[in-house]
């Protein structure tokens, strides 16, 4: 909508630019340098994860499962291994890149499940109240106390440790926190005049929920989802610890941290490298989350 570069004289002073909601949100997001930088980092990571097999074929990075037991625990910077090797002499850098395929995807997709189930239940319970709220919240109470350790153990043991089963198992036990959070924020704004006005104007409950209630609880939801990413990645590592995670030797970040733990005294880099990768991802999603909340906040619109 913004007119091209303006030349002072021919400027059409009569009608200054007017832009729509989404373009405004995008322009505001674009102006938040931190959010943009973070978006770039995430995209780079995803790209690296995708082209990792290519990099391996071209020979830039070795096969993550290739063992070179003679020089195991080689320190970072040693020849051929930028980030060193692990207890079986496998290259840490390629383990990080290939590990990203599992860890990043699990970290992100689980959040969609959490948003779907948790957000859904929270919104519906908060908006309708009454026995609906009671039923959904008692179900959430049960899920809170649920021995998710046992549940995940059996689900994945029974159905097999495939990627989808693990994703579902983690997602299924991860949404309770978000549900209660969303319900809490909906309860307080449900009474707001503009919500009642919209209700009075006959707009359907789903429209109200999505247009009014969800945007307002955006802040806490985004924070919870960004914290959910490392949590999901570590839950996958716990699954592996229980024997029902992604089958080794496929590397994942969470498992690299767990395995590195045993050697933290003599070879700390084995823990530091995956933790840095995780921190970077978490930091990036944090700022993207902030940028998103500010960009979508109706009050901030020009």
């Amino acid at each position: 909508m913004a007119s091209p570069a303006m030349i002072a004289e021919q400027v059409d002073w009569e009608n200054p630019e007017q832009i729509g909601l989404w373009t405004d949100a995008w322009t505001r997001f674009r102006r938040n340098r931190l959010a943009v930088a973070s978006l770039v980092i995430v995209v780079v990571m995803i790209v690296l994860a995708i082209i990792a097999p290519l990099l391996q074929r071209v020979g830039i990075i070795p096969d993550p499962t290739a063992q070179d037991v003679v020089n195991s625990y080689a320190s970072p910077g040693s020849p051929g291994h930028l980030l060193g090797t692990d207890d079986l002499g496998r290259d840490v850098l390629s383990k990080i890149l290939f590990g990203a395929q599992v860890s990043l995807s699990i970290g992100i997709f689980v959040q969609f499940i959490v948003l779907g189930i948790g957000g859904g239940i929270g919104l519906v319970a908060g908006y309708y109240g009454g026995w609906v709220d009671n039923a959904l919240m008692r179900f959430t109470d049960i899920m809170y106390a649920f021995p998710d350790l046992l549940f995940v153990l059996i689900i994945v043991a029974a159905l097999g440790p495939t990627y989808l089963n693990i994703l579902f198992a983690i997602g299924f036990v991860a949404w309770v926190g978000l549900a209660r959070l969303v319900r809490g924020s909906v309860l307080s704004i449900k009474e707001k005049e503009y919500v009642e006005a919209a209700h009075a104007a006959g707009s359907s409950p789903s429209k109200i929920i999505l247009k009014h209630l969800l945007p307002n609880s955006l802040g806490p939801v985004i924070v919870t989802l960004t914290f959910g990413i490392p949590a999901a990645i570590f839950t996958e590592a716990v699954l592996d610890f229980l024997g029902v995670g992604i089958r080794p030797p496929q590397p994942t970040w969470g498992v690299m941290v767990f395995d590195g733990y045993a050697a933290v005294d003599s070879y700390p880099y084995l823990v530091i490298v995956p933790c840095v990768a995780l921190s970077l991802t978490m930091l990036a999603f944090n700022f993207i989350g902030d940028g998103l909340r500010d960009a979508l906040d109706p009050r901030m619109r020009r």
Partner: protein
Amino acid sequence: MALVTGAPLRGALIPLRKRSGRGWTLGIYIARRLFWLVPVMLFVVLITFFLAHIAPGSPWDKEGRQLSLASVHNLNVKYGLDQPIWTQFGLYLWNVLHFDFGTSYQHPGQSVNQLIGATWPATFTLGAVSFVVIVVVGVSLGVVAALRQNSFVDYTAVALATVGASVPNFVVGIVLIILLSNFLYKITNATFFLPTGGYPQDLLHMIMPVATLSFLPIAYLARLTRSSTLDSLRQDFVRTAWAKGLRERLVVTRHVLKNSLIPVVTVAGPLFAGLITGSVIVEQVFQVPGIGRSYVQAIEARDYPMILGTTMLYAGLVALLNLVVDVAYVFIDPRVKLD
């Protein structure tokens, strides 16, 4: 906004809001919620009982030297595991009604009540202290980060949050041990968490476990508080408060904070429940004689009575604390109706 027939007319021309009659409806609501506690607990016991029994392996399988068939049979008879599963469940429920949670397979001669009684105080103390630290540090960090947005404080809060969430607490724990244990050991001649007499008098012993337990929740609470405080800061009534000439401290506490408490309280309930029922990894790394560790050991050892006992403790706590949170909503935000 219908005119409420039941409630006594308050003389106002158009009573726009149904009077909430604070004391009375609250009582009914709490009673109803407590009534709901029973089916929730029953359902939790049902699932956990069957999940535990479905899990592969029996309490008597072990690594290395295996038990003789005779021993296994004798053990099953002793603990009634040879009965059909439904009778076992019925018997278990009957005992629970008499507040007898059975005896632990791992610790013959000790009932689950005794074991929980012996191990819970340490976990509870550690959890409660951590909770206070988390709320105080987390909320204040969040508020300051929001008030001084995009400032030094804001970025350190974010950095702390990021590291907090990305480094699992057992790594934090072990790093603390490696770095601090020499120093701390010289002062307290032991960094073991010693609950002398069940309650650790000596706070020095709790520094590391509390720090490790609190690291991640502080980060999360700070981020949450920051985001909800930012939302409140943008509200018009904050500008009115400034316009009235209130001091900043008052504007923040009475106007901004009070409006950003809802998400904080929502998270605080289950957080407290989680903390006082113990974190497995922190208890393992710091050798805390707590209930968190015994829960995972119980699962690994398929110690059914212990699994059920601990799960019910946790279920009860979470349900009660969520009730406290729901009631707290009403006191924090009068617009929230209890129905």
